[in-house]
């Protein structure tokens, strides 16, 4: 998750203090890993340096939270571009699984056992996400669903790979 772009996006709704941004970020995007204040201010500092936000009214007192941040046109354009462009479909996990399977077959290791173990790990994660979905908020449920559908896709891939292991073994050991 891109922290700078997310903070920019939050600022596009309305100007805000670092504290507001952290609170909203943690509510919707942090998934149990709160954004450190240091990172919030460091990120806002970089965004200001790059002209994507400006500091609006500074309230009297001390400390970083007196500053109110306002998005610039450049910042808004960046958010728009980011939202408009699709993200890369992540082939990484599948690439790792595929590499392991092919290597296991090349090295005459039990590829099917490896895939069964992986299936168990995937299902355990799916159980956790399902529990979160049943007991959590709507936001939790929607994020959990996203994870669940991806894990399910991996499992489909694992299933067809198991069914094709003999054929694949012949290919990689030829």
């Amino acid at each position, binding site marked *: 998750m891109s922290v700078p772009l997310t903070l920019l996006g939050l600022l596009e709704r309305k100007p805000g203090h670092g504290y507001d941004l952290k609170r909203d970020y943690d509510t919707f995007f942090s998934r149990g890993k709160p954004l450190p204040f240091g990172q919030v201010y460091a990120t806002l500092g970089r965004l200001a340096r790059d002209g994507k936000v400006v500091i609006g009214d500074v309230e009297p007192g001390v400390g970083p939270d007196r500053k109110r941040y306002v998005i610039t046109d450049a910042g808004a354009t960046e958010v728009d571009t980011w939202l408009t462009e699709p993200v890369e479909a992540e082939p990484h996990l599948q690439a790792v699984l595929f590499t392991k399977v092919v290597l296991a077959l090349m090295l005459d290791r039990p590829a099917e056992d490896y895939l*069964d173990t992986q299936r*168990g*790990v*995937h*299902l*355990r994660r*799916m159980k956790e996400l399902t529990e979160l979905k*049943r007991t959590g908020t709507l936001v939790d449920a929607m994020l959990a669903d996203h994870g669940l*559908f991806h894990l399910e896709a991996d499992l489909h891939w694992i*299933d067809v790979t198991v069914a094709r292991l003999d054929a694949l073994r012949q290919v990689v050991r030829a």
Partner: protein
Amino acid sequence: MTLLEARDVALSFGQTPALRGATLSAQPGEIVAIMGPSGSGKSTLLHCLAGILVPDQGEIWFDGQRIDTMNESRRSLLRRDRFGFVFQFGQLVPELTAEENVALPLLLGGVRRPAALRRARPWFERLGLAGLERRRSGELSGGQAQRVALARGLVAEPGVLFADEPTGALDTLTGEQVMDLLVSSAREQGTTVVVVTHEARVAAYADRQVVVRDGKVNALVTA
């Protein structure tokens, strides 16, 4: 403690071996999902556990009793009194209203009609079906019919609910609602559930998942 168990069960249909040494057990209140590819023996195993099919070899135990050696009439009573069933589709009696369908296991068990309908009715509110009590199955959507079937499977507070692809005919969201209701209702009543599904997202609602492959049960290391 084990409530339900299949021990090394084998069963062939003619020359076709469907189960070849399948072993599976469920604790009281446990929700177990049986996964696996098509034709691997999932439904056959479920039918053996539920006393619908009798294995060629092996043993089936329920609540301290061996049920595969019982005669058909005792097994049929056991199914009626202790088990509930939900299948993929086509299980509602079209001539009956939704509430009569829900009440059916009670009526078959000898509960008088007014009492049976009284026990059936709260399920409609609970499963989001209020107002549909008098509809016949042809007047219900697939998801509604499946929730009626779920209520019918649970109304007699069975020891075990057997569900074979209960969400198989439903879209994703409706299927998940049915699973959510199935799991919450079973937990509330302490009902043990054996659910067959080839969908991982459905299996993820269970406490434990096993995979049937070539008529044998592989436990998944998920705990």
